[in-house]
């Protein structure tokens, strides 16, 4: 077996906020209508987390379940647990119309940390940060590419496609240049 490697070898940057490419991180895409009666039970049984409400992300330890669209959930978990979780979810949802796919290696994941972390994203995303709920998973774009982020432990975690990892790192790095803060102080 080859070793799993993150997209940018855990590159990091220190600006007015800290940018870190973290990973490899396990990610599972679960597509199913959210009103399927089995779905909530399967999530509770396999992950210990229920079905998140619209645009919310639930966290338990290192496992997260986020609402991506009316028929899609994103599960974020340690890389090593992906295969077992995919198998367990597939079994728990056997017989219903759904898809469980391991997308860990198709994605990249970044941490933006520090008191001014939000300002890094404010420059890149068409999002009203004042309206964001603390546990909101927001899908949007960062400059020219799709991304999703949520607030977590003194910063934000941002997920994007792996093929644009270097582009996203460049964006975040440039956005976090010291002296380029949006608000003084």
């Amino acid at each position, binding site marked *: 077996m080859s070793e799993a490697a993150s997209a940018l070898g855990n590159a990091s940057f220190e600006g007015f906020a800290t940018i870190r490419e973290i990973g490899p991180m396990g990610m599972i895409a679960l597509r199913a209508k959210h009103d399927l009666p089995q779905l909530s039970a399967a999530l509770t049984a396999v992950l210990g987390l229920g079905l998140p409400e619209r645009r919310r992300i639930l966290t338990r330890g290192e496992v997260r379940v986020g609402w991506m*669209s009316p028929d899609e959930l994103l599960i974020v978990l340690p890389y090593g647990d992906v295969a077992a979780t995919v198998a367990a979810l597939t079994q728990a949802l056997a017989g219903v119309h759904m898809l469980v796919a391991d997308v860990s290696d198709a994605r990249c994941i970044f941490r933006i940390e520090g008191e001014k972390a939000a300002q890094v994203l404010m420059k890149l995303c068409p999002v009203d940060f004042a309206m964001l709920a603390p546990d909101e998973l927001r*899908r*949007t774009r960062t400059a020219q590419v*799709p991304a999703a982020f949520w607030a977590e432990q003194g910063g934000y975690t941002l997920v994007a496609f792996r093929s644009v990892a270097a582009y996203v790192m460049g964006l975040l790095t440039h956005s976090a240049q010291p002296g380029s803060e949006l608000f003084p102080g």
Partner: protein
Amino acid sequence: MLILECPYCGVKAEETELSPGHEAHLKRFGPGSSDEQFESYMFARKNPKGVHFERWRHTYGCGKWFLAARCTATLEVFGTYPAQTSEPPADIVAKIKARRPNWEGVK
């Protein structure tokens, strides 16, 4: 800047997060239809200066198609609603009539 609320995820998305899908509520004329019907389905579009029903896709968000009623002249948005709707919902039509008393109606 046009801001439309996605009826699926509830995000007030600005235009750059969306993709336009042109006129909504077109009736498809496929095999067995006359040339005139197919031509009008294929090519004829309203392009009004005023109230218009459009398809939009929340491309960078939840990825779903939805429909919007807006004014092409003032960019006033009357409302958005799910794409699984064959004609504009009554509440949106009422809202348009209240704002545009001279509006000639959906067809």
